[in-house]
């Protein structure tokens, strides 16, 4: 915001209170109500107005308070925002970042915890970013804001309080569309994104104790997808486990599995496994620890794939 006066932040409760997770804390005091704006409680017009603001020359960074409620504005996000450049044949574009907390594990109420990323990765024109570390969150967020096209920026609920890490000072960006190797290994590749990366890292640690060397690939960006990094890692290890928090069927893990099949089939020494939530809606708090994939389940899949 300091660097680019066109950047405006808006959404529900992002102003004075600094967001329900304090993600925009301090911005209101620093940049004032002209650039940090509390809006009515309406996801559709938050996303839709972002399009108009972008056409008027602003760079909107809008918050959808929880991804679970983004469907109230699904038309504006998927049918409109994602297609601004395409449907106007390049006359207009939407340099818009929609930030949305998502994913489970913090005992939030119903619909606050769902990992709905696959609903949005199926929308051509929309980039979908899902960092797992504080440093990547900063670098990818700044890159998203500067990207000329719309980005859905997913912030793991668990990340706000449970993940700590160094954050580079100053102007720091991470290129969109590049996965990162969170841990090097040689026997199995575990592919994950967002909060599931921490789970995968824990499982990798546990597997090490059993003599299995696990590489953890943090996708960071779902669209665009770093096909090269996926192919390179799986070609090296010959085995892959894909972890997602969302229910199994039609989840983004299926896209990753299909990609591996296309790009690294002949390197595979075992069937690819998926660790996902079962095909049931996200449960209420007392049940959620039995739902969100944990390190134990990922470890089981790692061990199983080495025995296939």
């Amino acid at each position, binding site marked *: 915001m300091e660097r680019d006066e066109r950047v*405006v932040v808006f959404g529900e409760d992002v102003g004075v209170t600094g967001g329900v997770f304090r993600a925009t804390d301090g911005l209101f005091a620093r940049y004032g109500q*002209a650039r940090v704006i509390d*809006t*009515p409680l*309406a996801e*559709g*017009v938050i*996303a*839709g*107005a*972002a*399009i*108009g*603001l*972008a*056409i*008027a*020359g*602003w760079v*909107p960074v809008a918050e959808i308070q929880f991804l679970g409620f983004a469907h*109230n504005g699904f*038309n*504006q996000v998927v*049918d*409109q925002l994602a297609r601004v*450049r*395409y*449907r*106007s*044949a*390049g*006359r*207009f*574009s939407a340099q818009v970042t929609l930030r949305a907390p998502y994913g489970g594990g913090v005992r939030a109420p119903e619909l606050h915890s769902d990992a709905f990323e696959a609903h949005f990765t199926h929308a*051509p*024109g929309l*980039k979908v970013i899902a960092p797992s570390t504080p440093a990547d969150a900063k670098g990818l967020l700044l890159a998203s804001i500067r990207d*000329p*096209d719309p980005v859905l920026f997913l912030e793991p609920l668990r990340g706000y309080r449970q993940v700590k890490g160094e954050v580079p000072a100053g102007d720091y960006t991470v290129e969109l*569309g590049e996965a990162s190797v969170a841990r090097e290994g040689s026997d199995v590749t575990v592919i994950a994104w967002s909060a599931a990366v921490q789970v995968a890292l824990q499982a990798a640690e546990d597997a090490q104790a059993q003599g299995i060397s696990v590489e953890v690939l943090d996708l960071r960006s779902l*669209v*665009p*997808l770093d*096909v*090269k990094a996926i192919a390179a890692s799986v070609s090296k290890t010959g085995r892959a486990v894909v972890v997602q928090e969302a229910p199994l069927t039609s989840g983004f893990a299926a896209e990753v599995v299909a990609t591996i099949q296309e790009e690294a089939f002949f390197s595979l020494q075992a069937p690819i496994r998926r660790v996902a939530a079962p095909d049931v809606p996200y449960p209420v708090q007392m049940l959620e620890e039995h739902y969100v994939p944990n390190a134990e389940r990922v470890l089981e899949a790692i061990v199983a794939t080495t025995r296939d």
Partner: protein
Amino acid sequence: MKKAARAASARLDGVRSVPMPPMVKYLDQDGELLEKQSMSDELALEGYRVMLRGRRFDERCVSLQRQGRMVTLAPGIGQEAATVGAAMALDATTDWFVPQYRELAGQLWHGYPLRLAFLWHVGHPIAFQVPGDLNMLPFQAAIAGQLPQAVGLAWGLRLKRARGVVVAVFGDGGTSQGDFHEAANLAGVMKAPIIFLCQNNGWAISTTVEQQTASETLAQKAVAYGFPGIQCDGNDLFAVYATVREAVTRARNGEGPTLVEAITYRLGLHTTADDPTRYEPREMHDMWVDRDPLRRMQLHLVSRGVIDRSGLERMEDEVKEELRVAWDEAQKEPAPDPSYYFGHVHASPSTRLGGQLKRFERDGPG
């Protein structure tokens, strides 16, 4: 009924309806002025010409569609005064026109070229590429989907302290959409310089306004969002122009949005895939034929001596010729290259999409 319940019921009876919004009207059915209006004769004649252009364009396109030369299209026949009158109230150099899909006549006034209009109806993608100097969003198929964007645009202009205002057009059916209500609500809160122009043409395909809403008027919906709603005779160019002009002035002065309900009628089809004889009472259609905005304006202009019969015939010939030229030009437009649809998804294609394009260029689709 218990006493307390009776009292509550009585209280609610009192607030069931809101006052009727004002209704603006200048021309009677035969083109006679009911009261003085402010548009000059020259401007009125120009407005009439663009209304005629829109009418003849739609008629031509319906005919071309019937010959299998055009895609499904939604003519605006009967609604030309509503959209041209609104466009005339704008300064095209600063103000934006945000269409749904049944306001081509108004778009022509604002500067959208006839050639592109023809290309729209043959399914050419460049029809959506609004020319670079034109303050207009592309056509919108999602009913009321343009309204949140139009509010964002208006809000953005206000934040920039720019002079511009936005007119966003939609229909009676659009007022049932959440996007309308969310947009109107935000516009009120942000005092966005926007005019919501609702073309109440009586029908949302086959659904009547009475089936659409229990509100007495569509204009009154503005009351709930804290800004004025007003009705005008949408088949009266002077009424629409004066009403929207007043709303534009309000918006420019920082007084926020206005909802204008232009009462008009869809004399044609919902789209060329529609058959109104299945639902539209004949007598209702005939009643509105008598209120045709072109007929009224023509009678008015002739009675004032602004134009005579031979002048009208000349204008018809000129419009016919303009349409012929534009249609010829449109037909000369090269068909888009099959790989065209890969363009403009992102500013620069991802590796994956780039690969899909390469494969497409080598092997074709699939």
